[in-house]
């Protein structure tokens, strides 16, 4: 993804980046090319909701669940995902 993520972006994990239940370590890991990532609980909450929705919609959903200010949640979502996007671990659904 070339552009910085915004509230309107609709990022997805590409087929070659998989969330995996790691029974040995008792946590969810993200398997990616030449990398294993150990996402924090916040990142996992966000990643689980990426299905082609816009990040604005993702933030709306999380607001309802966690009763936190929307701008704070959207900031967290963008922060968590931009890092993954920069590493090439997110792709954008073409409209």
């Amino acid at each position, binding site marked *: 993804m*070339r552009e910085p993520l915004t509230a309107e972006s609709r990022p997805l994990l590409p087929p070659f980046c998989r969330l995996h239940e790691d029974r*040995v*370590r008792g946590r969810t890991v993200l398997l990616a090319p*030449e990398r*294993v990532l150990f996402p924090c609980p916040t990142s996992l909450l966000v990643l689980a909701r990426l299905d082609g929705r816009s990040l604005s919609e993702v933030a709306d959903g999380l607001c309802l669940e966690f009763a936190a200010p929307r701008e704070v949640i959207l900031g967290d979502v963008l922060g968590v995902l931009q890092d993954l996007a920069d590493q*090439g671990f997110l792709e954008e659904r073409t409209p």
Partner: protein
Amino acid sequence: MTLQPPIGLLAELTHRCPLRCPYCSNPLELTRAERELDTASWGRVFREAAELGILQVHLSGGEPTLRPDLEEIVARARAAGLYVNLITAGVLLNVERVARLKEAGLDHVQLSLQDVDPASAERIGGMKGAHAKKLDAARLIREVGLPITLNAVMHRQNLDRVAEVVETALAIGAHRLEIAHTQYYGWALVNRRALMPPREQVARARAVVDEARPRLKGRLVIDYVAPDYYARYPKPCVGGWGRSVITVGPDGKAMPCHAAHTIPGLVFDNVAERPLAWIWRNGPAFEAFRGTDWMQEPCRSCERREIDFGGCRCQAMALTSDPTATDPACSLSPLHDRLLALADADSLGDPDFTYRRFMTRPPVASDELSPS
């Protein structure tokens, strides 16, 4: 200290290869085809690896596509729950094979690049027509939707073309580019005089990478493996001995790193005879340099001892004949200045290669820094 589970398995399926690269990381004494593990044995190793906590398998060689059962090996690795990476030169792939590998569950391909200039690439790899076949393979791999990491091994004879290497990575649609300076073990150590770049050339290449990285952010991730003779601190080889990866050779020999066999006196267990979990926890070769107790000064009291673990044991062995010495690539090693002088001298050396091949009496890689 609690032992954490390993993360990666490097599975060297074969030492056979149609290329003859003079920096090959395989041993000087190559394992012959008749001693290779069969499909079912690899399947069992993958299941044991996953139970031990391994998450990714890197199917390597030699050239792993020489194994006619590679599709089945991929399928068994995937069935065990592993993320499956294929490390290949690409020169034997065709459209049907790529489709079958994808179908079997392959996740990612690491494609090697010898050079961007076809004549030079084919001289380095020692195989005619290899470059065009590789570019074809890259196209086929992308067409089935698999991601590519382009792995360019750099040295004096191709380093001036690093900008074109970046362009090639973009042109083939690679997701990642690894610009990896040659590491001097095995065949590369034999060929060091033909491969070592002068420091000015390394600085120019570094500037190209530093310019390209921010410009290509979001399009191409560039990893840069520094030439460690010229580095300030050594690389934390394999993330620390017996700490995160296991290598299994073609014949089933389990090693803490793919060059560990160069250290005399280490006893390696075989996955055909012992469970992988036992080897990981108790195998004497894995225990040999775990932790920090084996260290000498200046490593023993160094604040970086758990960051780079004294550097590389195999390099310490190759250069000083003592596998517990500080890696001379470290600027804190008392031998570092002599290593730099050696690198400077080698960078002016003869460009002819000793190509890798199966032989009864392998060439000798010397240990120049040891007192004679």
